[in-house]
């Protein structure tokens, strides 16, 4: 059975994501930008749910909206200075940056228009109920065998360890 009114949900979520993304890069106050970014992240999590990726949606909400954004808000409170809310928001070369971004957008549009036929119209539906189970089998392996991504998983944990050490060492006054 096809889900009811799926296209409407998609357009609402996409609109919310893009509009609050616009707020992220235009607000003067960094706290407002962070709150708009949280809205964007939640909307993107909704899009993941529509793509039958419930585990990635959960990770997005817990890690991004719950962890990384709290880190951002803490840092904004630590370094927020009155001066930055009064001076210019954009740097001197902003027309160049905007032009470069528009060129990138034109590149994307031309690629999508030319490659439209490469994308099949009806996407294959993934089994939704066993999504987390299958991801776990690929990450950790099953039946005593190493999974396809077990080594990458270990490397990722090492990367997080290095990042923790780096953050602590750089923020300490004296080591």
């Amino acid at each position, binding site marked *: 059975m096809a889900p009811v009114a799926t296209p409407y949900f998609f357009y609402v979520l996409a609109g919310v994501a893009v509009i609050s993304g616009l707020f992220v890069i235009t607000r003067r106050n960094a706290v407002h930008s962070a709150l708009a970014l949280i809205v964007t992240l939640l909307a993107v999590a909704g899009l993941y749910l529509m793509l039958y990726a419930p585990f990635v949606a959960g990770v997005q909400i817990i890690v991004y909206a719950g962890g990384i954004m709290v880190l951002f808000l803490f840092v*904004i409170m630590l370094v927020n*200075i009155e001066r930055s809310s009064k001076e210019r928001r954009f*740097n001197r070369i902003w027309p160049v940056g905007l032009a*470069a971004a528009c060129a990138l*957008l034109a590149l994307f549009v031309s690629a999508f228009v030319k490659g439209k036929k490469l994308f099949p119209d009806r996407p*294959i539906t993934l089994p939704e109920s066993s999504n987390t189970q299958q*991801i776990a089998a690929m990450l950790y392996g099953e039946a005593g065998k190493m999974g396809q991504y077990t080594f990458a998983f270990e490397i990722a944990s090492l990367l997080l360890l290095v990042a923790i050490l780096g953050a*602590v*060492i750089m923020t300490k006054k004296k080591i």
Partner: protein
Amino acid sequence: MVPITTLHYLVVAAALFVLGVIGVLTRRNVVIVLMSIELILNAVNLNLVAFSRMWGNLHGQLFAIFIVVDAAAEAAVGLGILIAFFRNRETINVDEIDLLKW
């Protein structure tokens, strides 16, 4: 009503990516530049998950999870650098971060 295809998701991801690029290239506040990088990473994640559904396997979703790990590491290190810099120079303005420029 047109059914939602992979291309729809790619267009949304491209819009988010371009917004992130604009933020990185034009804003002066380093915190907002880092937030724009998060926007870019989210656009990439959306692409990966959309392609994962298009091909019917889970590799794209696993890549998305690894990119979330990278984003966490990048945010921690970037904000650590930012705090260390703010302690020395009392500014978080990109235009004034030019210690390496001779």
